[in-house]
């Protein structure tokens, strides 16, 4: 649910969804080796995912390395150079503060990618822990933990954030933390669903019989075996976070100037939509679409490989 972020997990009839786990079955999974091997196989087989990865790398290079070669001043506005059309001096023109649009795309992309990755890390870690505990213990614990998720899912992220932003002035760190704290719900539900089926497996029972504690069962058996679902969802989380950030910036609740974001650039450009300043509307939007699309490609490709039967798409 996320959504704007259109929440990605759908459940059928309440919570009684059991997702068939198809990541490696059995025994303790030694995480790093097998996951990396899995990823390697995936990308070798799957052209779509590979396209996504290459495109993400190119975008990251553009945003983080680009400014070293295309040097522009993105801090001081220059009122003599406002709204210039693209020319040799400004390849994509300038905006209403005289900032070079191409340079701003790079700087704006940095915050988008940083927020996307950080939010996905926070949300996934929280969601995995919450979901696996809830699913593993079941019963009353599960009921309480899942009702908390339901409550938070009921209030759309953008609504909640608009409310919070009307009280606090957002900084990069605050954006990351708040979005992270609001986005762990869909991984929590997915991992719970998977845990429900994993916990009945023989190897989990065997670990219990041999005197292994719950913590061991969850961290050594359940989570590693749910890793397919987790990685796929984390990839979608990055895409979603970038979209939410863009939406919030567009609504004027993103980072304050002179910090640049793609959404913020679009928000500025909207004022000139009647003047035909296309370079203030299309490039930033295209960057958002490209980035989100790439992460979605990766997620979709990974899911096909893991054959994780998510309920959506």
């Amino acid at each position, binding site marked *: 649910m996320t959504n704007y972020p*259109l*929440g990605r997990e759908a459940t059928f*009839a*309440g919570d009684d969804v059991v997702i068939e786990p198809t990541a490696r079955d059995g025994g303790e999974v030694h995480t790093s080796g097998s996951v990396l091997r899995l990823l390697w196989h995936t990308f070798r087989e799957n052209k779509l995912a590979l396209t996504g990865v290459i495109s993400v790398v190119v975008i990251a290079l553009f945003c983080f390395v680009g400014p070293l070669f295309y040097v522009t001043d993105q801090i001081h506005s220059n009122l003599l150079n406002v709204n210039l059309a693209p020319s040799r001096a400004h390849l994509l023109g300038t905006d209403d503060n005289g900032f070079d649009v191409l340079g701003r795309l790079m700087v704006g992309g940095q915050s988008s990618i940083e927020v996307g990755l950080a939010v996905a890390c926070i949300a996934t870690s929280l969601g995995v822990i919450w979901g696996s505990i809830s699913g593993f213990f079941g019963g009353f614990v599960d009921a309480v933990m899942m*009702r908390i998720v339901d409550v938070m899912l009921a209030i759309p992220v953008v609504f909640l954030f608009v409310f919070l932003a009307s009280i606090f002035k957002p900084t990069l760190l605050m954006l990351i933390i708040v979005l992270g704290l609001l986005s762990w719900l869909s991984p929590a539900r997915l991992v719970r669903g998977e845990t429900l089926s994993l916990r009945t497996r023989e190897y989990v029972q065997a670990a219990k019989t041999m005197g292994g504690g719950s913590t061991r069962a969850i961290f050594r058996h359940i989570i590693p075996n749910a890793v397919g679902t987790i990685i796929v969802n984390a990839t979608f989380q990055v*895409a979603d976070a970038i979209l939410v950030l863009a939406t919030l910036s567009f609504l004027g609740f993103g980072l304050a100037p002179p910090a640049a974001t793609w959404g913020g650039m679009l928000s500025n450009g909207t004022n000139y*939509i009647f003047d035909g300043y296309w370079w203030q509307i299309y490039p930033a939007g295209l960057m958002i679409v490209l980035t989100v699309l790439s992460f979605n490609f990766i997620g979709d490709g990974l899911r096909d490989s893991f054959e994780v039967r998510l309920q959506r*798409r």
Partner: protein
Amino acid sequence: MTGFVVRRLLQAVVVVIGVTLVTFLLQHLIPGSLARAIMGNHATSAQIKAFNNEYGLSRPLPVQYWDFLKQLCQGNLGYSFKQSRSVDSLVSQYLPRDIFLVGTSLFLALLVAIPAGIAQAVKRNRLLDYSGTTVAFLLYSMPTYWLGLILISVFGITLPWFPVSAPQNPTFFGILSDPRALVLPIATLTLVSYALFSRYMRSSAIDSLTQDYIRTAYAKGLPRSWVLRRHLLRNSLVSIVTLVGLSLPSLLTAGLIVEYVFNFQGLGLVYYNAALTSDYPVELGITVLVGVATVVGNLLADIGYAMLDPRVRYRSVA
């Protein structure tokens, strides 16, 4: 079946109470209190105190929460001091417009997405499927507002076919006064929802196509169109019921953004303006309303699903 409904109903009640609790606590996150937000920086502490006493804000939090709940039960969502009118009156003025906007778009999106998804599933991995997937992927990865901006810039400015803002008459029938102005907002929302539903419909139909009942139907010698319409479509419709219920928060969010982009006077825009002017009671009232709507949407979706698909009922008993 009754057991299932009762159990889901109880869950929904618990969640609704949770939503009101969260909203209530949000109200108390406001720095410098509601009184300060309303009376401004020049109010003396005596005036603040008087305000708090008058509106019961100096009482203990649990008492205030109980009162808040009682008010909600009576259908009282709060009072906007900034606009000098009750939140209820705002809701009753603007909510029908939202229902019209979101409802029409949802209907149109489903009307296109269901056949498109099934066609893609049947022609899997052919040109039709690839083009459909590309379109859905693009729309899905696009910020709602950017889609709106593109439509404005192409169909409102370059080709001046449609007005760039929604009908401005603030009454319900006012939106119908200028149907042409509705085209772009509804188109934006429809396209966004289409992306979501068609992807889902495709994978759900692909799943169904491998099921035994489809093979049986073919084995009986039924023509393909009959199998698709009577067996595949019907079974896929069942799962789309759930999806519609679950996507309510996304639809409402997309609605808020579309209202902002096209200046469509609806609850989303009211909410946005309330956030800009620190009109907290309006924000809280609408948040509760959205939360409750989502819970009820999910509840209806689950019950609808259980009614349409007997397997769910049996599974929930087990």
